[in-house]
């Protein structure tokens, strides 16, 4: 019971992380681009300012509004589930529930631009769906491979190689699902004129942006949780180790995003598959060899 309260408090505190860390990332990005950049609390200020504005209902499609709210709810539930897994008890069903909630949130997030009757956001939504198709599927595969290897007793070096390559794949899929360059093709492309962002305004826009940022938080949490659960025992201490690791990962992802360009929609799935297929093949081979030797 006590644990549940702690989980609630920690999740509530983590809700502000996406905004602060985004501001931090913008500062680092500005430093790499030799400029000063906005203050670290800028994203938080923007969020608060947008929430202050009058609520104009989005008449183009009320379904899109509901989708945004659904996405946020799913993400918060996923966050709570993951925190429960780290802090309260190592119940793998809760972990997989949290993962499932995250993936459904990805789907509803990709659905939102498609529901808006504006050619720019339609094109953006289409691109998002295509990338998700390749990326989320691989994420599921890699998590499956990892859990299989960790759950078994095989200890041959091939298994460790398989584990390593599955972990690398997991981190890459986590990077791609954050929607950073080179894969921010859904809204950042020039001809889209910001796609869906044009349609929302005021508090609804604030919610949508918050959903995008929480997506980034969860995408980084998942691989870290999977690593940490094999190294520590349940308790608040794991949370205290998790948050700095999150900050470091966010920073590394931010730096990586600054030094690359943006890919194009027809190149994106191809280049992703060229990366994932060899890595997953290596991982599954290691897995099978491990099973064979066991």
């Amino acid at each position, binding site marked *: 019971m006590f644990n549940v309260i702690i989980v609630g408090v920690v999740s509530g505190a983590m809700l502000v992380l996406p905004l602060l860390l985004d501001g931090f990332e913008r500062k680092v990005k500005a430093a790499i681009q030799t400029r000063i950049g906005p203050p670290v609390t800028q994203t938080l200020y923007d969020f608060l300012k947008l929430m202050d504005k009058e609520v104009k209902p989005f008449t183009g499609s009320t379904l899109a509004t509901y989708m945004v709210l659904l996405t946020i709810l799913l993400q918060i539930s996923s966050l709570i589930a993951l925190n429960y897994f780290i802090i309260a008890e190592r119940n793998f069903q809760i972990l997989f529930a949290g993962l499932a909630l995250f993936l459904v949130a990805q789907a509803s997030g990709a659905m939102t631009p498609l529901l808006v009757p504006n*050619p720019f956001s339609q094109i953006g939504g289409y691109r998002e769906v295509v990338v998700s198709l390749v990326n989320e599927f691989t994420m599921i595969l890699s998590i499956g491979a990892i859990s299989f290897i960790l759950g078994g007793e095989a200890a041959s070096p091939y298994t460790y190689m398989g584990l390593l390559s599955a972990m690398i794949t997991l981190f890459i899929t986590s990077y791609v699902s954050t929607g950073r360059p080179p894969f921010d093709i859904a809204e950042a492309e020039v*001809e889209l004129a910001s796609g869906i962002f044009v349609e929302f305004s005021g508090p609804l826009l604030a919610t949508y942006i918050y959903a995008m940022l929480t997506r980034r938080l969860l995408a980084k949490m998942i691989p870290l949780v999977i690593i940490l659960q094999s190294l520590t025992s349940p308790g608040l201490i794991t949370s205290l180790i998790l948050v700095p690791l999150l900050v470091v990962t966010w920073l590394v992802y931010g730096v990586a995003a600054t030094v690359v*360009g943006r890919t194009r929609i027809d*190149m994106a799935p191809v280049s992703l598959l060229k990366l994932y297929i060899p890595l997953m093949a290596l991982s599954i081979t290691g897995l099978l060899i491990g099973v064979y030797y066991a």
Partner: protein
Amino acid sequence: MLRNTSIIDKYVKLAESANASIMVDGDTIHIVAKPEYITGLAGKLFNEFKCVHRTCVATDERPLNGFFSLTHLFTDDSNGFYVALKTYLEGDKPRAPSIIEQVPAADWCEMEARDLVGIELEGRSAYRLVLPSGWPSDVYPLRKDFQYDKRPSILPVSEKVTITEESSTVPVGPYHPALHEPEYFELHVEGEKVVDVKYRGFHVHRGIEKLGESRMTYQQVNFLAERICGICGFEHSTCYALAVEKAAKLDVPERAQFIRSIILEVERLHSHLLWLGVAFHLVGYDAGFMHMWRIREKVMYLSEYLTGSRKTYGINLVGGVRKDINEEKKPKILETLDTLEKEFKELVDIATSVPQVKRRLTDTGVLPREDAVKLGVEGPVARASGIDRDARRDLPYAAYKHVSFKVPVYTEGDNMARALVRVDEVFESISMIKQLLDQMPKGPIRLEEFDIPPGKIGVQVVEAPRGGDVHFVITGEGKPYRWRVRAPTYSNIPALRVMLRDQPLADAPLTIASIDPCFSCTDRVVVIKEDGSVYKLSLVEGDKLWARSSSQLSS
């Protein structure tokens, strides 16, 4: 000039075959023919003599001799001649034959002549190009009886985006967060593929040609010309000054020409660095954009150090320049150029190794050589499609005959080739500035006393960072009688239709940016102030815009 007599003889024979009069004045060949011979002569000039059609100029010469005139300007690049093919037209509703059957590149300038001076072109479909659709139909701004500050009342006409069944329309502009100037591209897309493009421009007409002919004196027009464009302003004012000096046969001091050439190259440096930054931004590589502009800042400081202003230098006058480059300034220039070269090389190295940049620039927006020749594209766009043309080498002006430089030519014709042409030109410019500084002669920088006789014609082509810029001046009393500017982007925009066809939508902004469009240069003709009434632009007009050339171009 003895070795050129055989070439001049060929032109004389050409003129005689059409009963036209011919006069050779320095490096300009003036041919005056009757209207019915124009199409044939233009065709022969384009096809047999391999001249490049630059622009056509319509002039209201009724105060001088009672006629309208239409002059087609060609340049013979391989021999270094300008050819002005002129015809006189009678009456208040003059008619002239169109030459677009022979020379497709003349499309836009003929329509501009029709809009602004009222010359009807026979043998082609006509449409409103430059004036808004609500403009009264028999008011012609560039005629001499139209006062420059008159404001006709315009009916606002509101328009809609063309919706078709087969494809969805993505409007890009006129107000678009990504564009720096207003332009309107209507991209018809099917899925991710662009199947058609409609363009409507000329939103920022400012009445520069009319202003230059009415309120300004010769020396004042220099400052007006500089403000035609924010990026390539100095070459406009140099081109104007050179055209007037050619018309009046002024002997400008050598030192002034050297200073002009140095500043022209400095301007080329800043323009290409700007473009590279923008190209990186459009592929999402913002860090490259920031670093490129950081490097460019040194060039801007150098410009201010040499001329007194970061842009719109204001040092050009008819007869020379106003500000000298002293000996004390030389070490700073050389030091800046050395640092620039090193940093630029390093950054281009890093940037082209970014896989997304490389893959998105290569093989996109391809312009094949035959289309490039037919459309008369200019500058890096032409040089990237295999056309070896550069006005600094073919029609030498200012001090360019004293320097040696390479002209980079690539044959692929894609966005990457256009980028590489500009990168190579930066290195060439740096070496040219060093050579010019070395060889600069001593002497005055300005002609103090000179006379400009009225009624003379001067044509000059200057190689701007975007291509060849043409200024045509007919001198008058104390101010130009007619001043025509044709900026390079004017010729490059029609090429977009070929480049954007069947390309993924994601490459559209990059392709549009790869011609380095300077829409301020393109639309600079007449006042369209309309008493503050707001109107949306005609996109149905755009339909007619593309009725031209679709039959001319190979699909």
